């Protein structure tokens, strides 16, 4: 079964977004569900911070469904395109030394998900994520 939801483009929505993911994956291992919720949280946070969606009242749409092998997500947003499917590496020791706060989200998404792709659809981008059980 597909679960679909639309959220206002605001960081205030993050708890509701995570609750939606958890409710869409009943009976699934807790840490696995948290990883999926975390990846979506990071993606939405990136979209909210790096796009103008909050200023123009655009919404963020998400669809989630499962199959025998894993969980599939489609996230439609108006964020500026970023290379979510290009592998990144981080060095947390460097980040500590440079007293950096950011730059971890994309790495986490890539650590968690098994497949990542981005499609342009007019003024929108559709990010597709897949995580195997």
């Amino acid at each position, binding site marked *: 079964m597909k679960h679909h939801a639309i959220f206002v483009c605001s960081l205030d929505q993050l*708890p509701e977004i*995570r609750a939606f993911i958890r409710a869409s994956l009943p009976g699934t291992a807790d*840490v696995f569900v948290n990883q999926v919720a975390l990846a979506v*949280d990071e993606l939405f946070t990136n979209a909210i911070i790096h796009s103008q969606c909050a200023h123009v009242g655009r919404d963020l749409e998400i669809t989630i469904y499962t199959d025998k092998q894993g969980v599939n997500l489609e996230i439609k947003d108006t964020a500026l395109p970023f290379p979510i499917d290009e592998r990144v590496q981080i060095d947390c020791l460097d980040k*500590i030394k440079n007293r950096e706060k950011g730059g971890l989200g994309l790495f986490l998404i890539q650590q968690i998900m098994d497949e990542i792709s981005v499609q342009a659809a007019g003024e929108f981008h559709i990010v597709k994520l897949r995580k195997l059980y």
Partner: protein
Amino acid sequence: MNVTIAHFTDYTRISISGDLDANSSVQADEAFQKLLADGVHKVHIDMSDLNYISSAGIGVFLSHQDEVHQKGGLIIFSGMNPRVQNVFQLLGLNAIFTIVPDIDTAHNLFSKHS
């Protein structure tokens, strides 16, 4: 998300409860910055009531680690649930940060560090 501060002889404990995400991490960061400005540099992060953490929450601790270290201080984390622990592991931070199971172990470590 709630942040509670408690001062002890050897260290200061920050207890964080609820969800620490890009929205709520601002409050946690302000609390941490104020402690450092007040001269606190032995910090116990009690996560026993922390339900969830994202990269923004992790960033708060990452960005203050160097300042604490430079002042001869120490940050010790305790009480992580398996979900929170897993996020630290995904980033390889379990090998960098001092993470202990509970409050008592953290207390003993600070006593030894004094």
